């Protein structure tokens, strides 16, 4: 075995913590590798040196400061609803996003932006759109009124027409 094959097991071996198989592999390698034998010895020294760093004691009043911090914690409401505060903000944001999306989808289509006006769209057209259509056709309606009330026309023999058919305004004349 090469050094790289056993190096991961050297620390466990140096501390006497290697599993049986791992220990067997390391020992087989150490029997033939003086460098790794020396390295394991030095790892043991390092471990001993680390053990020389003494433990410290928490300073006086440590527990009191922890208890003080805990006492300053906001009390949770019924069923711990305070814990849900961040989630509540998230839910509110999501709800606002959904509402905005629904509102945008429900907005009426704007004909001026090249949208084809369908009968359905006409039916839901706003009063201002209806007023515009009336003003737009006002000239045609006035011409129709003049032509139908002209005395000279009343002298003419009316052509036979189906009973339900109303006379069409003469758009060519009206546009003159």
């Amino acid at each position, binding site marked *: 075995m090469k050094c790289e094959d056993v*190096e*991961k*097991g*050297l*620390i*466990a071996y*140096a501390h006497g*913590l290697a599993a049986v198989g791992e220990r067997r592999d390391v020992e087989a390698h150490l029997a033939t590798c003086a460098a790794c034998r020396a*390295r394991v*010895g*030095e*790892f*043991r*020294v*390092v*471990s*001993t*040196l*680390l*053990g*020389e*760093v*003494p*433990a*410290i*004691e*928490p*300073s006086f009043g*440590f*527990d009191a*400061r*922890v208890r003080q*911090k*805990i006492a300053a*914690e906001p009390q*949770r409401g019924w069923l*711990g609803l305070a*814990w849900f505060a961040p989630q509540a903000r998230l839910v509110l944001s999501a709800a606002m996003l959904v509402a905005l999306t629904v509102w945008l989808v429900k907005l009426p289509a704007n004909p001026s932006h090249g949208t084809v006006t369908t009968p359905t769209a006409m039916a839901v057209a706003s009063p201002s759109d209806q007023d515009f259509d009336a003003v737009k056709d006002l000239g045609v309606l006035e011409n129709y009124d003049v032509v139908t009330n002209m005395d000279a026309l009343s002298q003419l023999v009316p052509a036979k027409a189906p009973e339900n058919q109303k006379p069409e305004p003469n758009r060519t004349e009206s546009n003159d």
Partner: protein
Amino acid sequence: MARTDVQLMLDVKAGDDSSFDFLLQKYRSPLVNFLNRMVRDQATAEDLAQEVFLRVYRARKQYTPSAKFTTWMFRIATNLALNSVRDNRHERMGVSLDAPTDGEDSAPLELPAREKRVDERMVERHRVEVIRRAILSLPEKQRAAVVLHKYEEMDYDEIASILECSEGALKSMLFRAYETLRVELAPLVSQSAGPVRQRAGERRPS
């Protein structure tokens, strides 16, 4: 019969704050020591340890014993320590490893020669400081692995769980850390290697 840590935490969850006091008494020293070896001064270590206890208390309602209590608590502590070290890294950039840390005297740090050993306590303090700085010179995660392994005496499985890595990755991490320490502490290692090798030879007959 003594209650386990998990049982104590479940009691805290049920509203028994005296069980939290018990956990505080039991783990304040291990936590402060672990954090003291991870960061550069005791005051920061204690602040972080207080934060760990606070987070444990805050999480009591959601606590489920899916892992060992110590694994869970030390994972919180490790993450806080790693964040603290990373946040303060820029402050250390210009600080020489030879500069004294907080609370020390300002005597120059050097390995004591035998003829200078007039004050054993002074020598011991210097030696400990050299070792402590070698630990602090390790990359944060390697440092955590060494401290949990050497001082908290946790097994590989638990350390790997705390550091959220595989056991193989942990072993590689420990090997690299010990290699660095072997170089950093070379003067002390060479001083001590003889007697230790002899002791090792006595323990393990070849």
